């Protein structure tokens, strides 16, 4: 197996084992998302019909805010004991370090979402097991984790990381949030591929730009 792939898998393995032991990222995403879902139901004075219209938005709001919580944690264990330096001392390329983090973040977000979705279905009385919905979910989460990993690395070097990450992250990912919410809503209302095609393309374009850009510039943050 070539060195890059080997290192990438090793780094992803490392993050997964650490998360299995510590359970900090997935639990924070899960708990916060569920709290958000509950609060929205109680705080909005909405009829069941209105709730149905609002539900795609509520789902994605909970994913975004819970996702932010998760993202603030992904580099904590790297900063803690200077572990990132340990990785930089190894032959692993800086791109592999970025991609390793990005993929493990993606995996954690998707795991959390796969638990949140059934809970959402139950609380909101909607069926969500549509392949197109899963496509939207995965594509948008790829966008979140690409640019989120980059911004998380930037934010962790600031004095106020909890506010810095959302300030960087939210305005930038607005296009894919809109895309995700509108297409989720369209699917839930019985729409089909032609209706959501342009949104999926938008999310895909964003993902590609974010991914390429982050991979190329991540090294800049690691330098001294």
């Amino acid at each position, binding site marked *: 197996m070539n060195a890059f792939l080997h290192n990438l898998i090793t780094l992803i393995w490392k993050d997964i084992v650490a998360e299995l032991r510590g359970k900090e990222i997935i639990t924070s995403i899960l708990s916060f998302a569920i709290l958000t879902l509950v609060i929205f139901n109680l705080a909005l004075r909405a009829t069941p019909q209105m709730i149905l219209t609002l539900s795609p938005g509520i789902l994605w709001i909970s994913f975004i805010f819970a996702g932010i919580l998760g993202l603030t944690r992904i580099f904590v264990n790297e900063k803690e004991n200077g572990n990132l330096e340990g990785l930089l001392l190894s032959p692993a390329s800086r791109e592999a370090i970025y991609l390793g983090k990005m993929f493990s973040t993606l995996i954690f977000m998707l795991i959390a979402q796969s638990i949140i979705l059934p809970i959402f279905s139950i609380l909101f009385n909607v069926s969500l097991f549509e392949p197109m919905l899963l496509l939207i979910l995965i594509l948008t989460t790829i966008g979140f984790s690409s*640019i989120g990993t*980059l911004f998380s690395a*930037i934010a962790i*070097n*600031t*004095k*106020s990381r909890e*506010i*810095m990450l959302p*300030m*960087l992250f*939210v*305005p*930038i990912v*607005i*296009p*894919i949030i*809109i*895309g995700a919410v*509108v297409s989720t809503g369209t699917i839930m209302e019985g729409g089909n591929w032609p209706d959501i095609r*342009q*949104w999926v393309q*938008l999310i895909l*374009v*964003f993902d590609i*730009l*974010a991914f390429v*850009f982050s991979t190329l*510039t991540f090294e*800049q*943050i690691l*330098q*001294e």
Partner: protein
Amino acid sequence: MAVFKLRNILHITTFVMMLVVLYAIFLWVPTDKNLGISQRIFYIHVPLAWSGFLAFVLVLIGSVGYLWKRTPKWDHLAHASAEVGVLFTTLMLTTGVLWAKPVWGVWWTWDPRLTTSLILWLIYVAYLMLRAYSSDRYQAERSSAILGIFGFIDVPIVYLSIYWWRTVHPQPLVGPATSGGLDSSMYNVLMLSTLVFTLILVCLVLERISIFKSERSLEEIRWSLELSK
């Protein structure tokens, strides 16, 4: 000192033209038939939007230049332009809000242009926050350069997504600035005002850059004093 003189000429020219355009906006140009006196804010609002955007183009140039060449002057350009850009965008949003109320009856509407402006503002406010909150100055320079580039790339995508969104969920509200075309005197004033605001942008950015340079020189002097002890 040729440079000193050039800057002086720039400042004086800008100042004089500012007076001219103020006169033009408030006293010379005819009042709009449909929108009334409040329409005059248009001659300030639109140039602010334009020069604010230009400032962010300068941030992009400075950011790319810095990541490529790593010399302080590119970083100064990006930082100074971001500050002035945020200032202008804040004023643009404020004048927009003040104008919207008498004309449209509402303070704000989530149409593509306004919403994108708001998000643009948020992105560059985040840029300034990143500068302020970074623990290490050199980290701040690199991180903000990254934001300066991707933020700029992102803005057209943001606009597009909101535009499509508004096509799907249209806003029941009337359009914008002009009620049926500008007559030539209005157009001329608008162009003049745009030029003046661009000049103000250039003046402010240059001044801010020279302050950054002075701060750096001061630091260098302090350090050589330290070392020679």
